[in-house]
């Protein structure tokens, strides 16, 4: 038998293609982004000139960026909503009922649809005379007739929530499946014993389900938080940043590819990265330590 160190060469050989590509397109960009944040980058000749903290000073004072950051933080409200709903939904589809495969697939359709295509439909759902208006009017939740018609994505007071609902619609099936996998790992006997002891459904959910899927909850809420912090494509396909839906990463995208100010965009990107790291650390503390 060979000793372990003789595998070093072959191990690195096997890892090389993946690591090289990841190095170029994932690790290097994170470092280079930090470098760009302190430079003026010229898209024409690729020259970067050092300009200290000018980009940071600029965005620190800029209303547009403040607002974008604020919108991104508001967007985090979606995280607990989507996680609680996904866990409850997973609990529901974990029951063996006729037709369950069909329902699981139906809940998964938004996940496997291109965001751009789903976005085109939802823009029409949100039109002032679209399905949402009709539905809310049918429930008498908003005034009837043209009085109640709202351009849901065009109204700055609510457009961001419109983007959130779209995110919820697209994301819940994904998290449902992750929780489903977590639920199926719980031994049947535990639940059965609790039923014998007379625990009701609510008690079983809190005392058994939640503690047993805690690792999945951490994973999902972490993914969900980072996803919410870096909302970008949803804004691109739904509103293009109109009506107060400018998020922090949309600012990055907009500065880079509309204004070609790569340095300022990189600085904003660095700020977003920083926020993501803080939020991840908070969640590890919150879910990770106390059993």
């Amino acid at each position, binding site marked *: *038998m060979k000793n*372990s*160190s003789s*595998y*070093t060469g072959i*191990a690195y050989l*096997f*890892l090389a*293609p993946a*690591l090289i590509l*990841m190095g170029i*397109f*994932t690790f*290097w*960009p994170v470092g280079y*982004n930090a470098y*760009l944040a302190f430079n003026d980058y010229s898209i024409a000749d*690729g020259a970067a000139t050092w300009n200290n903290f000018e980009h940071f000073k600029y965005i620190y004072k800029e209303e547009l960026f403040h607002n974008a950051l604020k919108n991104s933080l508001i967007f985090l409200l979606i995280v607990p909503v989507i996680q609680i709903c996904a866990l409850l939904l997973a609990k*529901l*589809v974990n*029951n063996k*009922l006729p*037709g369950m495969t069909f*329902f*699981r*697939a139906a*809940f*998964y*359709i938004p996940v*496997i*649809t*291109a*965001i*751009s*295509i*789903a976005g*085109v439909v939802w823009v*029409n759902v949100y039109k002032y005379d679209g*399905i949402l208006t009709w539905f809310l009017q049918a429930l008498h939740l908003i005034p009837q007739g043209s009085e109640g018609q709202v351009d849901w994505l065009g109204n700055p007071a609510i457009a961001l929530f419109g983007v959130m609902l779209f995110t919820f*619609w697209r994301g*819940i*099936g994904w998290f449902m*499946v*992750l929780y489903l*996998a977590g639920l199926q*790992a719980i031994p049947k006997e535990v639940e059965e014993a609790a039923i014998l002891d007379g625990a009701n459904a609510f008690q079983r959910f809190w005392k058994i389900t939640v503690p047993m899927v805690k690792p999945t909850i951490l994973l999902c809420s972490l993914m969900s938080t*980072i996803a919410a912090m*870096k909302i*970008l*494509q949803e804004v691109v*396909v739904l509103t293009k940043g109109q009506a107060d839906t400018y998020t922090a*990463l949309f600012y*990055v*995208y907009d500065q880079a*590819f509309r204004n070609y100010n*790569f340095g300022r965009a*990189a600085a904003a*990107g660095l700020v977003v*990265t920083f926020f993501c790291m803080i939020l*991840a650390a908070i969640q590890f503390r919150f879910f990770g330590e106390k059993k």
Partner: protein
Amino acid sequence: MAMGKQLRTALAMTGQYAGLIGFGIFTTFPFIWALSVALSADPSNTWLFPRSFWPTDISLMWFKRVFDDMPFMTYMKNSTWMTLQTIVGVVVLSILAGYPLARLRFPGRNFIFVAILATMMMPTEVAIIPNFITLKHMGLLDTQLGAVIPNLSTAFGIFLMKQAFEAVPQDLVDAARVDGATEMQILWRVMVPVSGPSIASLAIFSLVNAWNDYLWPSIVISSKEKLPLAVGVFNDLTGPFATSYSMVMAAIVMTVIPVLIFFAFTQRYFIGGLDGAVK
């Protein structure tokens, strides 16, 4: 007492189905609406609810119009080609990288694994600017390869394959070693054949991701004839064709259907493959 229990069970069942159906309507109504509008020759009901949820004058004319007015087949071909490249790349790279992380002991192993996993927690969207510059230097802007290449090495794929290879019995590996197999042979003749389900689910995941990728191809590719479906159709629908809702909906249905058919046949692997990633 027996009656009471039966009644409770019936009530619970009804409640569960109500929840399932209600939520099913929530996730599918945009597509049902799109399908109905696309199938209706007469567009006058499009904005009349709930009337628009069933088609009037069923005809395929709007679907035909999509083929005639949009370079739909070109987009389709581009998506197919780019998706194929992505699947092959992701699967091969993940298999190669997953094996040493799962089965070989070597210095730096833990560090490399943690570094790969950490990318799952980073907001990698900030990479769009440096990657755009890198592709410019490589001369890959406005190429399909440029849209594909940053997606080939994924933490998710490597992680999934590592989990799969860890589950392979050591006896199989030992037997192959006794027979004098090289590591490459062990990987392709022992590990890969018994990890079929995980490889299938990784391939399916890559397919759906690549087929649906929007933002990055929209940044990299500028020539219309090189665009994949998710970008080309979006650009056309929000641009020149935005006036005919029937045609917009027909194009949407046609874009969604290939993925749906594919998903119908593979959903067992698709959803099953996630178990390994969570446990």
